[in-house]
């Protein structure tokens, strides 16, 4: 994959498959410390310690864990190529938190890419999930919690043309205000 935003979309997919009703995604760019951190936290079914050990190693993924797939190993390899790391905290019945770090200025770090489209697709594509998106660059931050939006919309679909237009505007303005020229 060519963008960190595509990885975010992919890892969030795991959360949905794990039955999460709430997923919080945080992208934090700390320019001074030269770190880019992505955190994806869900309240899905969680994993036991044995499964956590397996999911980042594509070579010992057995058929029973196949649905976890290649997404996490890809992302872990990408992080480790940039002086970074990937960690998983998970508890059965509670949820999973994936945190991945990159050296921000590393020559091999993928660009963040089209974060706006990743957020928009998740929000519209999985209406049953409560999404919270955070994007922060140093002190500037943007948060989108979709709960108030869904309360107002009630029975109007998220893929209604005028709602798509509204969501695009809110997400693009929010992300663009934060993200000037550091990617």
């Amino acid at each position, binding site marked *: 994959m060519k963008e960190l935003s595509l990885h975010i979309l992919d890892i969030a997919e795991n959360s949905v498959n794990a039955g999460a009703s709430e997923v919080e995604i945080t992208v934090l760019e700390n320019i001074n410390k030269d770190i880019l951190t992505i955190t994806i936290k869900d309240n899905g079914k969680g994993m036991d310690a044995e499964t956590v050990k397996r999911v980042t190693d594509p070579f010992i993924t057995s058929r029973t864990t196949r*649905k976890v797939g290649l997404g996490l190993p890809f992302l872990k390899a990408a992080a480790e190529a940039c002086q970074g790391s990937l960690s998983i905290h998970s508890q059965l019945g509670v949820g999973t938190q994936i945190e991945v770090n990159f050296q921000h200025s590393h020559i091999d770090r993928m660009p963040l890419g089209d974060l706006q489209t990743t957020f928009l*697709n998740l929000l519209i594509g999985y209406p049953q999930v409560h999404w919270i998106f955070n994007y922060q660059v140093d002190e500037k931050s943007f948060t989108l919690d979709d709960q108030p939006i869904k309360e107002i919309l009630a029975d109007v679909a998220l*893929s209604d*043309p005028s709602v798509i237009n509204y969501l695009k505007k809110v997400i693009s303005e929010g992300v663009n205000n934060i993200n000037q020229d550091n990617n």
Partner: protein
Amino acid sequence: MNAIKSLDDLKNVREAALAKRKISENSGSTQVIVGMGTCGIAAGARETMKSVLDYIEANNIENVVVTQTGCIGLCEQEPIMQVVLSGKEKVTYGKVNPDVAKKIMKEHVGSGNLVQDHVITL
């Protein structure tokens, strides 16, 4: 954007959508599903979905519900898109790039004609 002002805007959006819906009450809703597993994403599914949303927005298409799903086991055919017209069988399309997605929206969702070149027989 000011958060509160923005939610007020949303209330207006909702009112307008509801008013329009009353006019076109008779047509049932169409489902469009885009495969968004690792295989789909790697093959460009995010841009396929964006293309569908852009088409709906640009052409003001009502009553279409767009959702995502995970890998359905046909990774070599990704990006995959499925269309379910109200009361009809689900139709699965393979190798749906953004242009093909627009074509499916126009011909299948818009006029009820399948885009035969991309139909996958399950």
